């Protein structure tokens, strides 16, 4: 298990530098600059500290400003004076200051900034930890975080040299890329003459591929995220996993040797692997029997600690597996996966629609139902009007009328739409085509279809061969392509795009796909002379997801890397999954 990398695969760059940098900055900021001696989590409750000074390290969110203002005003009412400092990370926004001003506390608060944008979650994963990026940009059209993304890219290029080959797709990607280039030009010289360490960078917007992000994850790491929610690279396993009355916080990264071997595996293999591992471990313990004193001494001093550590990790992951199995191996989950696969492949649409309807009627889960509706819409180019109305009606009856706003959001983001009523479109088209030549009429049709932001998933899937033809069983133990992350049913679109572009070193020959993605103006290739890039660096690829990426996508690309002798590094605004995307779109009563 955990297939090794090819011997010629490049080494990953050392991200520990970033970690050190962030830690040192933070310590300096808090201890030296602001004389902080105790840390509390910012929660929406009164401050208990009796200190003379309160220092807040916060994201520049209006909600946080209101909270700070309420604390200050409460102190004022109580006749208490102290110093307040707000450190904004990654930057201060004017709107935040305005809120402080409007709440009448601007004069009482001093502000500072901490330009922190990259958190290394793992040896190959950097996160900006900005989950709000997705909603702010893709729903509200708010570009405030683009600057942060640009700063992050700039920091990477100052640390790891220029990127000789750049590819990207998506509106946000294009804008970020252009601003980044401008910044690099202005600060010329910093990267000039440096040898590139990372040969390629590929940027893409989350809305280029919503489908992949909305699929149920079945690779271990993704499944753990879907089931328990991984936060900042660690997860809280509750009593049902630890089989004690306490929860356990576990860091999930390459340093956990057990986890590292199963993280990219299809779930069906994981339990078998873990029990084999447990037997091996037992055997190693058993070697104690029949040892003489000297051997025993050696065993205790050298091996026992490692074994115990492994034992602990094993029991954690076995517990997690059991808990997942309890939830996911029920008939319900099988049916769910079956429906998803049907949607991806585009058969039995009626049956799937009824399944979704039943899902809503039974109030199984508001988020899951939304996800299925969106998957249906994305794969079918929108729902037919009848289904669009009835599914929404059913949903409102189940979960309340405020979700009218949720549907409005989903429509705006292009996640849940109504098929353009064919009649009106054709009527206009035929009228127009009578007036002009056929070629012009074709162009007008194109214009019409690009007017409605439509997903052309079916055609794209065909072009890129996203649904592998399976003769017999797909052997999930020995995956043959990236589809294994979805049980062999579907190759993630985002990952396939990356694979194709890397193979061609450009978007050449992918014009039709790009057009179907409605990204004709938004896909670019930018190459500089490669004479300085070593062949090793040219097999190192940084993939940047603006709007979030899923663990399944990461696993798929890790697999691709092993197959081709590449190494992928990931930079994402946040790690996401279907539930997080849906929650970002949902309107909830406060």
């Amino acid at each position, binding site marked *: 298990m955990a297939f090794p990398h090819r011997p010629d695969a490049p080494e990953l760059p050392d991200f520990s530098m970033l970690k050190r940098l962030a830690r040192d900055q933070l310590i300096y900021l808090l201890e030296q600059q602001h004389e902080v001696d105790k840390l509390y989590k910012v929660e929406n409750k009164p401050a208990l500290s009796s200190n003379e000074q309160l220092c807040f390290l916060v994201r520049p969110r*209006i*909600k946080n400003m209101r909270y700070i203002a309420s604390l200050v005003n409460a102190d004022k009412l109580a006749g208490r004076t102290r110093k307040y400092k707000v450190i904004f990370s990654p*930057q*201060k*926004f*004017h*709107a935040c200051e*305005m*809120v402080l001003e*409007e709440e009448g506390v601007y004069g009482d608060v001093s502000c500072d900034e901490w330009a922190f944008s990259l958190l290394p979650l793992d040896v190959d994963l950097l996160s900006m930890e900005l989950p709000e990026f997705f909603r*702010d940009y893709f729903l*509200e*059209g*708010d*570009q*405030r975080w*683009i*600057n942060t993304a*640009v700063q992050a890219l700039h920091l990477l290029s100052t640390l790891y040299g220029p990127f000789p080959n750049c590819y990207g797709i998506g509106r946000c990607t294009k*804008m970020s890329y252009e*601003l980044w280039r*401008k910044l690099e030009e*202005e600060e*010329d010289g910093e990267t000039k003459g440096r040898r590139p360490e990372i040969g390629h960078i590929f940027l893409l917007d989350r809305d280029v591929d919503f489908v992949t992000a909305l699929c149920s994850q079945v690779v271990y790491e993704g499944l753990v995220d879907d089931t328990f929610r991984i936060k900042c690279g660690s997860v809280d396993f509750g009593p049902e996993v630890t089989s004690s009355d306490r929860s356990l916080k576990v860091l999930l990264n390459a340093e956990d040797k057990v986890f590292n071997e199963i993280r990219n595996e299809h779930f069906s293999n994981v339990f078998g692997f873990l029990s084999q591992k447990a037997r091996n471990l037992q055997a190693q313990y058993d070697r104690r029997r029949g040892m003489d004193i000297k051997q025993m001494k050696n065993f205790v001093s050298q091996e026992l600690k490692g074994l115990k550590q492994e034992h602990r990790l094993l029991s954690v992951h076995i517990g997690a597996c059991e808990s997942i199995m309890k939830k996911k191996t029920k*008939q319900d989950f099988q049916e769910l996966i079956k429906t998803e696969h049907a949607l991806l492949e585009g058969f039995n649409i009626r049956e799937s629609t009824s399944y979704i*309807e*039943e899902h809503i*009627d*039974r*109030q199984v889960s508001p988020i899951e139902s939304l996800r299925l509706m969106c998957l249906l819409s994305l794969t079918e180019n929108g729902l037919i009007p009848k289904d669009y*109305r009835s599914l*929404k*009606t*059913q949903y*409102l*009856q*189940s*979960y*309340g*009328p*405020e979700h*009218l*706003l949720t549907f*409005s959001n989903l429509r705006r983001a292009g996640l849940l739409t109504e098929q353009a009523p064919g009649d009106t479109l054709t009527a206009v088209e035929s009228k127009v085509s009578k007036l002009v030549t056929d070629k012009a009429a074709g162009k007008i049709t194109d214009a019409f279809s690009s007017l409605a932001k439509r997903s052309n998933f079916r055609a794209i899937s065909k072009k890129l061969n996203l649904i592998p033809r399976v003769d017999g069983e797909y052997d999930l133990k020995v995956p043959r392509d990236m589809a294994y992350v979805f049980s062999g049913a579907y190759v993630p679109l985002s990952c396939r795009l990356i694979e194709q572009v890397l193979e061609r070193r450009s978007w050449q020959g992918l014009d039709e796909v790009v057009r179907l993605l409605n990204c004709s103006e938004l896909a670019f290739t930018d190459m500089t002379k490669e004479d300085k890039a070593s062949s090793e660096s040219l097999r190192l690829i940084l993939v940047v997801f603006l709007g979030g990426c899923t663990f399944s996508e990461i696993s798929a690309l890790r697999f691709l890397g092993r197959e081709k002798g590449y190494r992928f590094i990931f930079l994402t605004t946040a790690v996401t999954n279907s539930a997080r995307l849906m929650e970002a779109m949902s*309107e909830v*009563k*406060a």
Partner: protein
Amino acid sequence: MDCYTANWNPLGDSAFYRKYELYSMDWDLKEELRDCLVAAAPYGGPIALLRNPWRKEKVASIRPVLEIYSASGLPLASLLWKSGPVVSLGWSAEEELLCVQEDGVVLVYGLHGDFRRHFSMGNEVLQNRVLDARIFHTEFGSGVAILTGAHRFTLSANVGDLKLRRMPEVPGLQSAPSCWTTLCQDRVAHILLAVGPDLYLLDHAACSAVTPPGLAPGVSSFLQMAVSFTYRHLALFTDTGYIWMGTASLKEKLCEFNCNIRAPPKQMVWCSRPRSKERAVVVAWERRLMVVGDAPESIQYKQLTIQVLLDRLVLRRLYPLAIQICEYLRLPEVQGVSRILAHWACYKVQQKDVSDEDVARAINQKLGDTPGVSYSDIAARAYGCGRTELAIKLLEYEPRSGEQVPLLLKMKRSKLALSKAIESGDTDLVFTVLLHLKNELNRGDFFMTLRNQPMALSLYRQFCKHQELETLKDLYNQDDNHQELGSFHIRASYAAEERIEGRVAALQMAADAFYKAKNEFAAKATEDQMRLLRLQRRLEDELGGHFVDLSLHDTVTTLVLGGHSKRAEQLARDFRIPDKRLWWLKLTALADLEDWEELEKFSKSKKSPIGYLPFVEICMKQHNKYEAKKYASRVGPEQKVKALLLVGDVAQAADVAIEHRNEAELTLVLSHCTGTADAATADKIQRARAQAQKK
């Protein structure tokens, strides 16, 4: 061979001096210097002369002339003085000429006689007139000290950041002091003045009498005082012809000298040569010059840095020379050539006789995109000279759109500023401009501007959503965006309103907006919600319990759970709940109640629209196998196997699957065959499969 010592003269016992001409002055002065106000800038800077200053006896029609020469006497500027009477001239550290008028107004001129600005030394000075004034230099910049007709001092330590200080009164001072000077100690400017035999030190707070250590007795008045350039040393000349030299702190005497000349000297100054440890005081009378030296002592000499040198060249508009020096010294572009070019450009924009186009083109040709040159700074200078159009042209060369914004705002080109801010991708900058626009334009125009800038609009909307809900509504209204307006009212119906009637009213507005948006679906759904809300309220009144804010589904479920079946059915009919949903709902609720009798009655009320497999499932979820089996028998053939497996009857499931000859079903049953108990069943299936293959 020349005799090097020939022109050296003895000075005292051990020192010699010589006098020789470094260069001759190029000027051609018609008047005697004694008739002029003269000011020479430090570090070999320019010299300013004001000819014909006011003499009471002269006719006013002869206007004085202000002339500026370089240190070597090259004329730099000459202009007729048209302002008021000047009391004193002096150069600031930035080589700006400060002309202190009698009325306390200080006029500031550039090296080339260009008027820069003026400021006043305050009302008190205006009223009492200026008797005497000094321009002095500190580490912060250049200051002005004024002695008024009321014998009071006013000073500003830095004319660049004008803060006027009125110094305390000197007790009993009835006439002007015989001499005075400014001192700078511990970063604070003081005034030292002599009144008769007494010396006073004035600081911000107090006036204190001071005595120089080791001062010879018999002094009845001080005729002159001189402080060194660095404010470290002080020299005093008394009416006894005695010179005292010491530290400016008045803590130490360096030396003293009696020259036996009792006439007041015209001038007394400290002088020292670069790197020399010797300092001397030069005293000048009408026809006599005397040099008084002291014992060697280390002093620091601060060299002109290369940056200051370049600044000086730039001030003298010797741009090519400055650039050559930069190139020769290989200074980095940003510190060297770029900076000088930028200065040149700032000079260029002041040439009013050249058209905007030509100036802009000339600047761009020379500067191109030299790193470190800020076109926005140059544009700011153009704007300062009143050339707004030129400023805008220059800004177009500024590659960083964000840098253009502040000046555009200043020039009241806010809309252009908005587009530039958007181009920069810096949302914060956009927001800043928006707030500007909001104050500058009326609401209608402001909204109109937003309408044309989607990015700014969404930014502003985001802000309003959190902070200015009413504005948000106005924005939607303005745009006839009925869809969003509807959403706005929907949100208000549960976030802002508490009373049922208020909430219904908000929903009504939402529904109206949705109709206008031609979103019939949302309108109908909203109307349904209005009905539901009213009904929930009534239910709470009649039945008690909690209904308001439940979804329709949950409302009906609550009714069923509460045993109000009739009402539940009525509600289901009223709101056209589909049969399928109602069946799922009742099935789940009755199972939750464990009311198996009622459930069975319900199952027989008519043919189930969801089939009977759900009955089996739900009963099993409640762990009631007995009830589950009842329904398993009623499950249709398609789902029979699943039902039998659910109730754990593997053997019968196998029989049905074999009967159906359905491979998928056989596999499913087989996967449920666990342990020895099902071994026979598994065998049976395998046999059936084998048989099927034979055929």
